[in-house]
């Protein structure tokens, strides 16, 4: 299945794009997708430990199992205010 991935803030600069699509197998977790993303966009791997991950509009844990149609966002720590 195809998962839509978005990058926000300077992660878009690191990736060289603000969105992409990645094909994954059924049962793929958010952590596994993150590994795939870091392989595809090596600069994002440098910020791997501080990366925040959301599926749709909610934060999710690494063991979240992705479903067809999910939209995943990766971004750095937030800085509102």
């Amino acid at each position, binding site marked *: 299945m195809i998962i839509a991935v978005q990058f926000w803030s300077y992660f878009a600069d690191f990736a060289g794009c603000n969105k992409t699509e990645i094909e994954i197998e059924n049962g793929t977790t958010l952590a596994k997708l993150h590994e795939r993303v870091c392989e595809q966009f090596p600069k994002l791997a440098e910020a791997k430990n501080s990366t*925040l991950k959301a599926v749709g509009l909610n*934060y999710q844990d690494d063991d979240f199992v992705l479903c067809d149609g999910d939209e995943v966002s990766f971004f750095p720590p937030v800085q509102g*205010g």
Partner: protein
Amino acid sequence: MKTELTISIDAIDEAALVKRREMGDGMGAVVCFSGVVRGREGDTSITAIDYEAHEEMACHQFRLIFDAIEQRWPVDSVRVVHRLGLVPVNEPSLWVEVTAPHRAEAFAACQFLIEEMKQKVPIWKKPLPA
């Protein structure tokens, strides 16, 4: 609990916001907070901060924070304005107002909202050096 959330590139008009305030009967406390862009970011002088947001998620996360406030304190209303785009030094990027029966819950809810926002609401800033 009444809530109002604005995320916009428009300048924050604090006087207009205060003028529109509606206090419920029995409300004895209003806490307002303005977050203002400082002229320095670390050791660097800046002229402005450029704010970016994942707006749909930011609105959702603010709503979750409002829900948490409603469950914890007898707050009557919460209004939040967060500005996006270029915000010059000395201008507010954030405005929060909480009304409640007493000051303790108004202060606590306001502080909680800001702390949670800084952990969860997807807004980022890019300082512009002078």
